[in-house]
């Protein structure tokens, strides 16, 4: 890869839109080229500046107007749309209710949640639940060092009934992420962790194919947990994990 290629692909690189091969080639080039490193750093700094701008939230009166009965009446006056709405409710209503309260990062929340479940299922299918198998947080945490560009918070929750089983690396939303694995009886719980995107999402709960997904942001980290554990015990796990941070 040449400096001209980097110039062309710099934006896609910082936006995590490059495929893995191009990304790797570009990273290799950056190791040897100070000028291109500067170019990339400048782009990253520019993005940070833009994201530091205050967010324009919708004024309350606008929210009230949008949700006002007058707006609704327009809706009800349209019979074909009302029928369409009924259809949506009966067919897709469940999905709509599960829809997340907010979106963020580079993908929609639904997409991330589905990827999380896929990652968890895949790890069970190919027996790749763990790359490092240890109940000791002091073994698991250093294992991640050097493999990730952030340090995931590793806590043992054995005293709460959720012993640590180990960790692995997964690739999600176009970036490598840490996965901590805990167990409750025979149920593995995967905890996906990576540095949170700039905007906070509301906590989220999602269920699909018998798996429950829970998400929140804490201490600058985005937490996504997935398990086939029942909802009550999984909520207990979430509380213990949140309290340990």
């Amino acid at each position, binding site marked *: 890869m040449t400096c001209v290629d980097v110039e062309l692909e710099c934006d896609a690189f910082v936006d995590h839109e490059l495929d893995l091969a191009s990304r790797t080639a570009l990273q290799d080039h950056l190791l040897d080229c100070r000028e291109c490193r500067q170019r990339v750093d400048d782009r990253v700094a520019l993005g940070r500046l833009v994201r530091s701008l205050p967010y*324009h939230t919708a004024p309350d009166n*606008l929210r009230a107007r*949008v949700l006002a009965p007058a*707006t609704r009446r327009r809706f009800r006056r349209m019979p074909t749309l009302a029928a369409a709405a009924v259809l949506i409710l009966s067919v897709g209503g469940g999905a709509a209710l599960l829809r997340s309260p907010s*979106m963020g990062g580079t993908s*929609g929340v639904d997409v991330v949640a589905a990827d999380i479940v896929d990652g968890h299922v895949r790890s069970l299918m190919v027996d790749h639940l763990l790359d490092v198998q240890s109940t000791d947080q002091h073994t698991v945490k250093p294992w991640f060092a050097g493999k990730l560009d952030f340090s995931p918070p590793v806590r043992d929750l054995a005293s709460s009934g959720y012993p640590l089983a180990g960790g692995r690396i997964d690739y999600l939303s176009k970036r490598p992420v840490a996965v901590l694995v805990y167990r409750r009886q025979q149920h593995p719980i995967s905890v996906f962790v990576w540095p949170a995107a700039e905007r906070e999402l509301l906590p989220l709960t999602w269920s699909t194919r018998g798996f429950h997904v829970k998400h929140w942001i804490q201490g600058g980290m985005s937490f996504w947990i997935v398990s086939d554990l029942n909802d009550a015990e999984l909520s207990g796990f979430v509380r213990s994990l949140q309290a340990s941070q």
Partner: protein
Amino acid sequence: MPPRAFDDTIPPHLDAAFNYARWLTGNDADAEDVVQDACVRALRFFGARREGDARAWLFTIVRNTWYSRVARRGRARDATSIEDTSGEPADVALDPEALLLQQQAVVRVRSALEQLPSEFREVIVLREIEGLSYKEIAAVIQAPIGTVMSRLARGRDRLASALRQAPTLVGHLR
């Protein structure tokens, strides 16, 4: 039967819709009007909505609402041509000693972004502030991904050069 599906889909994205509209229009009053009109349109077209990202879908409607308004008003100022290079940052009247450096930075960055032609401004807002993927941005602005990429690159180049002229930001950029 209340339109529950609409209520579950649109209100959560109202802040994002307003933020995008605010960047498109440049002022609160227009942004509020555009979002309100967009929500009425969203209600009307809700049944025809394809499955997918509701937020990006709402952005598309906000954008179309705004540009059709601009066209009606014939306000060339709001739809700065992509060829227009008169992008000198406005001289922001502020007392440097009265503001913290961070506040200055915010004012400068906001001003520089506001001065960008809308074609560049909106892709930067959608990417950096709203975190949309290239594919999602392409859907919102109804253009090929290649256009998204080139506008992002050119827009960022312009933004960076505008900010380099602002001495307080040199430390942030270099």
